[in-house]
């Protein structure tokens, strides 16, 4: 353990906050690392990255996929003389999590030793997909099979006949994209309808402002909350997410609590009273899917009451008059009607936000999962732009970049003309051309129809989409089954691999391998450090991609081992793997007001990286693509107002995907201490809704609609809006039978959803559709 803890006088009262302040000598000492002319902010380490303590070896590192989440918290991994991982603790020296961990990393030792892990490569006949008829094979045989099949497809049908699928990707995404590009395929595949996770927000931000925007929780500074330039946000608008649990997009959710303790106050917009909502200054309990309307209504109030930031808008925004016109119909009364809020709640929230010194838009997938997500994202963003909450402390900031990851890594290897073969390239240019991904819904149609050309193979790494993101697993399974050969990489057997894989390769968990933790949210230089040797035959995802990549395209993979590869990736930062490992985390120099200093545009002029050089409330980019340049609201569909007939039969609103503490999407169900926290899938509703439909707390029930049904345990939660059902996503029973795909068909909430994106090819209905609930009958059990 770090020296500063030993320095503690344990006769006095101690919290982990005291522990934190002791490790932040760095704030004053301004430790720096000079690389490529940049000076990186560092923290002082009491030990090297690996040291001995009390008979154990301690390896300092970062936690990224998997099992884990998107965050990459600083960890200390303790291993014994036999090489067993004894425990994982939060690293108090790491400013990111400051010693804290969520339950998932605390429980990692029982993940490592989990008996159900994939332990060696396996193959299966295509005719046996869905059956537990796997045969153990060697790595060489597995690579041969993958190479021979994919290479044959490439020769006969072009490299575009092979899909490359990732899930959340985390630190593995970049190797998958390089494998894909260097193979020659343009199919960067997410398997989520309307690309509705993060991508829509990022795209809307880039399209209208030339940058992405993060809430400023001081994460850019090594000395965090003590940094003199930083001020805590006066207001944090937690809009459709529960960051304490989800920890998404590089945000450590409990920073919100840290800021509250420093005086930040919240506005929470959610259909459910979360813990944050209970502590908010204002809680707007909103009808799912109507967030865009609320934002337009707040803009309407702010303009009508002349509360907008005139100076900022005059200098830096484009299209204010058009925006004013676009929101004119969204009076508080009209918006109250749409959102099921009270008109004066909307007015109050608008005034409160506009008058705050600084405010963060803490948004999440609820906006991505709005069917017309792009115009909704524009509306939310515009609200923070006209109130001047851009590029100042405690507001929204453009994160500096250590390494450029846009579109993945290795794009230069994609042969000319291949990009146009992406699914949906012409139909949805914002996805295929701007966001350079294959559009999922179009890909599914292509798998079914072979139009415009036949797809033949898939590489599935870091994703269990049938159990998780699929909005119609039956359809997706049938579509994927048309593929002639499918190779998968994972830590565990999953319903997706059991249903579809022809070859499966076992991967490693983060304490078993090296890696880089740079991207996602605010970039910082960190390494993932191997603490123990694996007891499986598994290889790291990076090693797998390198070894296979070398077979397909040796020129694109010139490295002898992963460390050489990491060194090369890190080169632009001035670090190599070992130097970064020693000093990590390394903080990139950061400044506020970058738009005033010419730091956001490629030409170095002041302003933003858009055609007009301003934040575009009226977007040139979207207009050029034939999309509405202005924000707009569309009724969620299906929904009470858009499909009133359907609403008669299915009178409840279904929202899905709220995160429980112990799980990251479909991960972690195998680990006993995490499973105990949330043993079975639940759907939450209030007592009134439960009574009305005859279902009882703690009992299994069906949630169903015209598309299908799934089972959930009813959990009465008085915080859920009346008439709304909030159902868990991503469930399967790892302990169940492979023959029925681990109870997938009973448990998949995707059974009730559809491949149904918004106009731009982004957005979906995961967060708002219609349903009803009824008790399980005897024969259902």
């Amino acid at each position, binding site marked *: *353990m770090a020296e500063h*803890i*030993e320095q*503690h006088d*344990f*006769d*006095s*009262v*101690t*919290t*982990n*906050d005291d*522990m*934190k302040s002791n490790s932040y000598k760095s704030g004053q000492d301004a430790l720096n690392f000079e690389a490529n002319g940049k000076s990186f902010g560092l923290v002082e380490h009491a030990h090297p990255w690996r040291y001995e303590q*009390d008979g154990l070896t301690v390896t300092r590192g970062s936690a990224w996929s998997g099992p884990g989440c998107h965050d990459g918290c600083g960890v200390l991994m303790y291993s014994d003389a036999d090489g067993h991982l004894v*425990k994982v*603790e*939060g690293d*108090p020296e790491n400013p990111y999590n400051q*010693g*804290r*961990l*969520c*339950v998932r990393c*605390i*429980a990692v*030792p*029982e993940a490592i030793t989990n008996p159900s892990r994939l332990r060696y490569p396996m193959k299966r006949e295509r005719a046996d997909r869905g059956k537990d008829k796997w045969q153990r094979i060697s790595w060489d045989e597995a690579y041969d099979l993958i190479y021979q099949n994919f290479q044959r497809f490439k020769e006969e049908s072009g490299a575009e006949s092979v899909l490359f699928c990732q899930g959340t990707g985390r630190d593995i995404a970049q190797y998958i994209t390089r494998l894909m590009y260097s193979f020659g395929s343009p199919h960067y595949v997410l398997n989520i309808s309307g690309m509705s996770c993060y991508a829509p927000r990022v795209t809307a931000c880039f399209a209208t402002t030339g940058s992405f925007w993060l809430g400023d929780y001081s994460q850019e500074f090594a000395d965090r909350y003590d940094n003199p330039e930083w001020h805590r946000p006066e207001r944090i608008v937690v809009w459709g997410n529960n960051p*304490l*649990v989800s920890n998404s997009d590089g945000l450590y*959710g*409990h920073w919100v*609590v*840290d800021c*509250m*303790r420093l005086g930040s106050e919240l506005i929470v917009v959610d259909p459910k*009273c979360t*813990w944050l*909502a*209970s*502590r908010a200054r204002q*809680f707007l309990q909103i009808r799912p899917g109507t967030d865009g309307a609320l934002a337009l209504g707040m803009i309407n109030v702010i303009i009508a009451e002349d509360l907008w930031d005139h100076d900022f808008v005059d200098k830096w925004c484009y299209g204010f008059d058009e925006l004013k016109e676009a929101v004119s119909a969204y009076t508080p009364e009209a918006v109250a009607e749409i959102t099921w809020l009270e008109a004066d709640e909307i007015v109050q929230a608008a005034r409160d936000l506009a008058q705050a010194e600084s405010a963060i838009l803490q948004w999440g997938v609820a906006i991505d999962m709005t069917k017309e997500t792009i115009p909704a994202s524009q509306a939310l963003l515009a609200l923070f732009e006209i109130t001047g909450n851009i590029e100042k402390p405690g507001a929204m900031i453009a994160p500096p970049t250590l390494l450029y990851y846009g579109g993945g890594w290795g794009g230069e290897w994609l042969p000319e003309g291949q990009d146009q073969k992406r699914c949906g390239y012409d139909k949805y240019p914002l996805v295929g051309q701007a966001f350079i991904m294959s559009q999922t819904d179009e890909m599914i149609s292509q798998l079914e129809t072979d139009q415009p050309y036949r797809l033949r193979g898939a590489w599935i790494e870091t994703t269990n989409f049938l159990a998780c993101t699929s909005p119609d697993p039956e359809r997706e399974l049938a579509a994927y089954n048309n593929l002639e050969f499918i190779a998968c990489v994972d830590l565990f057997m999953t319903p997706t691999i059991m249903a579809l894989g022809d070859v499966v390769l076992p991967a490693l968990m983060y304490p078993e391998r090296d890696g880089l933790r740079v991207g996602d949210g605010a970039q910082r230089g960190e390494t993932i450090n191997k603490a123990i040797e694996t007891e499986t035959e598994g290889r790291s995802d990076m090693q797998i991609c390198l070894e296979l990549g070398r077979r397909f395209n040796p020129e694109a993979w010139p490295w002898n081992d992963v460390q050489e590869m990491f060194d090369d990736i890190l080169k632009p930062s001035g670090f190599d793997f070992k130097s970064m490992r020693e000093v990590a985390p390394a903080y990139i120099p950061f400044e506020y007001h970058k738009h005033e200093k010419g730091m956001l545009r490629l030409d170095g002029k002041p302003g933003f990286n858009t055609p007009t050089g301003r934040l575009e409330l009226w977007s040139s980019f979207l207009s050029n693509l034939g999309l509405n340049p202005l924000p707009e609201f569309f009724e969620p569909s299906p929904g009470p107002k858009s499909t009133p007939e359907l609403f008669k039969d299915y009178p409840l609103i279904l929202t899905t995907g709220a995160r429980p*503490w*112990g799980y990251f999407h479909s991960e972690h169900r195998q680990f*006993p*201490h*995490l*499973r*105990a*926290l949330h043993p079975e899938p639940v759907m939450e509703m209030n007592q009134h809704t439960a009574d009305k439909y005859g279902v009882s707390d703690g009992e299994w029930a069906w949630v169903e609609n015209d598309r299908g049904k799934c089972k959930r345990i009813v959990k009465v*939660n*008085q*915080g859920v809006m009346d008439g709304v059902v909030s159902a868990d996503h991503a469930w399967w029973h790892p302990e169940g039978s492979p023959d029925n795909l681990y109870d997938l068909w009973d448990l998949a909430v995707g059974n009730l959803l559809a491949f149904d994106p918004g106009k731009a090819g982004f957005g979906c209905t995961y967060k708002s559709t219609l349903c009803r609930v009824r008790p399980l009958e005897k024969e259902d059990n």
Partner: protein
Amino acid sequence: MSAKGLLIDYQWCTGCHSCEVACQMEHGLPPDQHGIVVNQVGPWQLPDGSWQFDNIPSPTRQCDLCAARTAKAELPTCVHHCQAKCMRYGDLEELAANLATSPHQVLFSL
């Protein structure tokens, strides 16, 4: 040595369960046994429109105040990992003095 305890400021406890699981892992407890358990109260709405929603962690008889850790001048693992930084370990007397500083705290003598 004076008696020790845990002070929990449940105004800030988010119910994240890190204290629970950290304690289980440290002490090798099975999933159905706890050195500390988080009890959730709420949410329900009060007549004035505000919400009752508290998480109140309670140490059990299996809590040994992380004797092995504190003997090495390390924090109890629950305190170390508490995501809301709302747990304190220390002398009962000093902790008790803190009780008066803000409402919604609870002190455990262990």
